[in-house]
């Protein structure tokens, strides 16, 4: 059971994130929802890499025994970098939207005549 806690956390993070994206009306909260999903997925990759009693794969003076898988760690690092880029881009778009519409409520933006 104790080893399943990370997976439960993954499911919780992804579901909370999806809830925020689908039901929240504030743009910032939607952005937070997406970063929550991303953290969930990253945690999932890290959890996949871990084996019981394993050491970090960068530890050269290893006491012996097994090491955790390095590949998911590399994937997670890449994913985090991409995530930062997406987050920065989304927030800058939010800034532009706020300048145009003076609100962050999704119901009040993007309406009216097509230009």
């Amino acid at each position, binding site marked *: 059971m104790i080893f399943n806690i990370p997976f439960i956390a993954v499911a919780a993070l992804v579901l909370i994130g999806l809830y925020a994206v689908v039901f929240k009306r504030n743009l910032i909260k939607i952005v937070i929802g997406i970063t929550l999903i991303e953290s969930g997925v990253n945690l999932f*990759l890290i959890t*996949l890499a871990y084996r019981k009693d394993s050491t970090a794969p960068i530890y050269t003076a290893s006491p012996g025994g097994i090491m955790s898988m390095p590949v998911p760690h590399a994937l997670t690092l890449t994913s985090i970098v991409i995530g930062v880029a997406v987050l920065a881009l989304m927030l800058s778009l939010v800034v532009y939207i706020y300048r145009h519409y003076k609100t962050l409520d999704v119901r009040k933006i993007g309406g009216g005549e097509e230009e």
Partner: protein
Amino acid sequence: MNLETIITHSPALIVAVPLLGAFLTPLVAKINDKVRNIFVILTVGLTAFLVYLLASDVLANGIRTYVFGGGSPVIGSGESAFAIRILFEVDGMNIFMAIIASILALAGVIYSWAFMKGNTGLDKYYTLILLMIAGMFGMILTGDMFNFFVFLEITSISACALIAFWTNKGRAVDAGFKYIVISSIGALFVLFAIGILYGQYNALNMAVLANSMQYTFLDKIALVLLIAGLAMKAGIVPMHMWLPDAYGRAPSPVTLILVGTTQASLYGVLRMSFTVYGGHLTTPLKQVGDITIDLSLLLGIVIVALAIVTILIGVLMALKQTNFKRMIAFAAVGEIGYIFLAIGTAITTITNDPNTGATILTGSGEMALKGGIFHIINDALDVGLLFLVAGAIYYAAKETSLDKMGGLARNLKYTTVFFLIGLLAVSGMPPMNGFASKLMIYQSTYQINPILAIVAILCSILLLAAFVKVFHAAFLGPKLPKFTGVKEVPKSMLIAMGIIACIIIFFGLFPDFVVNNIVQPAANALADNSIYITQVIGGGL
């Protein structure tokens, strides 16, 4: 540096050249704007030339693999050995998509020359365009799941920034935000699925995954996540709401290349369902009396149902639009529905060969698959041409609302001709290319269920009605006083439209040539995944 060396390295170069070009563009732009534009066009032209070289080789000699960083370390030995590296794998399907991407990219940058003139921040614009092109080619050519995700994100980020390029228009930024939300969630679903697959099979290579696929419960979850994530980016109803906004509000050349990235996501759906899960499509799910319901039947029916809804919503919404670009965007949604209709029909007919046990397409399924694949290129060209025409009208008359246009045929002679070509092609009238592929789709779906073919034909007629209305509203009618000063658009825009129009007419007049030479290899590559697996794992190194 002979031709063979270039072809060997071309899978990497096709991605590397635009990527390098993207980051050189701001430096080159220091000289002056003209040099920058020529540099960008040359970069994309070189990429298109490499695609052409690779295509001629792949179509003649079969699948090619490219291993980054040499052949070792290698897992396994002999027949089952493969390198634990990032692999690019190019077979008939990959190269078919690469050809589409290269045509759209080239037309897009040529069109940008005149269309974007006068905007500020063009150095960044061209950098982003080249990044988007590099990401698109990467998605198409890669054979590695995680690499696919990375290129998916590169494409999303640069496409989002380009959709919101006109930041002075609030609605463009709004469309960009919608796009980034949808595409980042879709990409995270894909990453989740990749994690599930990696956890089970300890591999990221598509061929290795396909080879060791057990089709467990977790694999089913991964399949759902992959298809849902990529379908979001491909714009299937009910995940289509970003598409009309993004297509309608981005600058026209961006929309053209965006069509290419949407098709690349579509390619992802095909690659995942046919190649990675290809060996398990005939898994029996349930026994009802004498009939076994296979996974292929269920998956096919779900896809066909979604496709029918997509076609209906796309076409009906196109009918009621008054904004030119939005209307074409809804027509594009409908066209993607046609592709999925054909693909879904093909999937329903997959069965096991009674003699060899290999998965095969039966009867009309093969025709449907060929029609669907042929329609991918036709859809990209037709919709792309219409977007360019809409951009030309916006450039010349500064007007996008159909209610306020009229009599433009007097001022824009060539543009009118290009619009007529696009109109006939998109609504599937002979002798344009849309007719050739839609006829194949009608024929094959009719044999599965006549209602599907009837809906498909009816929607084509409605599409024709919608576009004839546009033709009448925008180009015919009395001369409007406010349009007296409107002149024909500059040459670079005419050249870009001309390239696409020529290809449309060529495909329409010689559909057999196209089907036999580039569509058939693509269909073969999808229908039988064993060739892909053996070539990549065994002989590719």
